[in-house]
């Protein structure tokens, strides 16, 4: 049994060395139209995915601060940020209203009403941010939000753009 557990842990740790690919999952845009997550990959620029929900205050704080810093973005390529709400379809309208009412500059809201994207990315709590490179490979992730996390995230984006 000890051997089995040891092998299991070793195999688990080995996974960290392999880049996760952006899963292809159906999402909705702000008008409710379906959009596939793989369409976020444009082959030219990396992009940020921030998982949030209406009842998560740290999520809203994180998106607010990213949005407030958006006009100051000085990276070599445009900054692409997608805020994916994991609110269920019952809270979809509220999430849409909240996203529009908060007026997040530079952030595209998307909606994962059946939690398919959340499950595919193995998100167990929000907020969690992901940075994918231009080919959709995961290069950075962070769970939770502490004020200042947005600075670290933007540094990672610059790095992934080669600056």
């Amino acid at each position, binding site marked *: 049994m000890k051997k*089995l557990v040891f*092998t*299991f842990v070793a*195999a*688990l740790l*080995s*996974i*960290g060395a*392999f*880049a*996760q*690919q952006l*899963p*292809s999952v159906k999402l909705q845009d702000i*008008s*409710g*139209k*379906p959009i596939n997550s793989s369409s976020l990959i444009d082959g030219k620029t990396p992009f940020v995915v921030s998982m949030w929900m*209406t*009842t998560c*205050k740290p999520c809203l*704080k994180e998106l*607010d601060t990213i949005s*407030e810093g958006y006009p100051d973005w000085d990276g070599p390529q445009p900054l692409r940020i997608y805020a994916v709400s994991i609110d*269920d*379809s*019952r*809270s979809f*309208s*509220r999430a*849409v*209203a*909240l996203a*529009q*009412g*908060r*007026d997040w500059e530079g952030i595209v809201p998307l909606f994962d*009403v*059946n*939690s*398919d994207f959340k*499950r*595919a*990315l*193995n*998100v*167990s*709590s929000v907020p*969690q941010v992901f940075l994918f490179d231009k080919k959709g490979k995961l290069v*950075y*992730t*962070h*769970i*939770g939000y*502490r*004020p*200042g*996390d947005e*600075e*670290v995230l933007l540094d990672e984006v610059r790095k992934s753009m080669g600056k």
Partner: protein
Amino acid sequence: MRRYFSILLILLSLPLASRAQERDWGSVSGSFESNSILYMEDPVVGKNKNPYGSNNYLKVDWLRGNLSAGLAAEYYPEPLSGYPEALKGAALTGLYAAWNPGLFEVRAGSFYEQIGSGLLLRSWEDRELGINNPLVGGNIAFRTKNNGLRLRILGGAPLYCLRLSDTFISAGDVSIDIPSIFGVESPHSFRIEGSIMDRTVRSQEENISLLASSAGFTLPSNILSWSGRLQYSYSGLSLKAEYVGKGADFTAEHLKGGREKYDLRGGSAALAEINYAIGSFSVSALYRRLENMYSPIFQTTGSRIPANTLNYLPSLCMQQTYLLAGLNPYVTYADGESGFQGDIYYSFKKGTALGGKYGMKFHVGGSWIDALPSALPNRDTPYLAYRDINIDLEKVWSRKFRTVFFVSIQENSPTHGNRKATDAQNVFVVDGLYKFTKKVAARLELQYLYSEELTKDWMAAVAEVTFAPHWSISFSDMYNHGSTGNHYYQGGVAYSLSGLNVSLNFGRTREGYVCSGGVCRWQPAYKGANLRIQWAF
């Protein structure tokens, strides 16, 4: 268990194999979560039945092109307090393979599904609530290239507390976008949707069968339900309507004097929703009526718990996040209620008189819920079940300092409106965040609850210091100075690194409802040390 671990090892070894053979074997991702509490005896909250509790979850997914597979496992040496005892043990709770070439998707094994807004069917996982009811079977979905037509058929047995239930769900769902199906490019979207679902029950709990036969009827083995939905959107306007009809099932009707009458009755639900946004102003309003919509995996004479559920009936009011505002939440009365919820959001632009240099965000929301007279023993004079109004104002004063002012006025009937008496409470919160440096910040919440009912007045404070991106330390205390004089304190430290989050908390937790997504479970009081590890890889 050994067999499960072997399957797991094969999946986990795929990346190693890919390195060895330099072939594209796809990518593996997953998550591990462990939530454990060491319980301690306490003069206020007493002693927990078990000295410890531990809920553990593992999930691994493999993805290569349009193929995917995965598994999930759970292990509860002792379930945490407030979770069903039936969870004790270990089990493989998910195992699936899926093929998604684009226009259609085929999935075999375990899957989560929701039809419409979940009134008819929702299988989902929520670890805060102890819900994990995936369907184990198959699911086929098809859509046309322009999404004009979407079809779905599915069948499977729901999981209940780690075990396959004796219930089988089969359902079909169709969704038609009128402009798209006729190939018309239109800024208007008009969608018509319909679903049908059958719940086959292979065996019934003995007590339920006895109650049914004593009332002179036989329990049906098939319960057929359906739903019809309309959606319209144009520019910033969206409208949605849904109606659900539930087939006749075992029902315990509440009568005066605490008596119950057992019957076979159907149920229904209606939902209407409007959402409008222009610029940074948005409004959403929702009406919902439920009648006999409790839809369990299996009927039981035991208490209704979230784990034994097949549909989604969240409470029609704001899901509170501040400690005192969430002290006595409203819980949906599935036997019969109708209510309204509305929210208005507005962002005052930077540079305006009220927005100032950095802008200000405003939200006001409210709800009003009445029980249906037919669902109450006192049918002649139903009273208010719940109402609230919530206002929050978020102001950014500078790059370093921001505040939130929040007021919540709530009135909740402990009898769902069967009697006139209600519990009213007014909650006031000031929440301030100050950034000392780019990565060091402190947050302070001060809260006050004024009430002349229940446990009367409370006050609370939360203090948190954060060192981005890794560390945070927090302390909180809820003090019931109006009645019991009890303190409910918590202290904790958390660490994050990439996909890893570890937190250690110690304190006293009050008994009450724990809610997630508008669904609530009962949490007994306890004192203890809580270690939580979350790792996404």
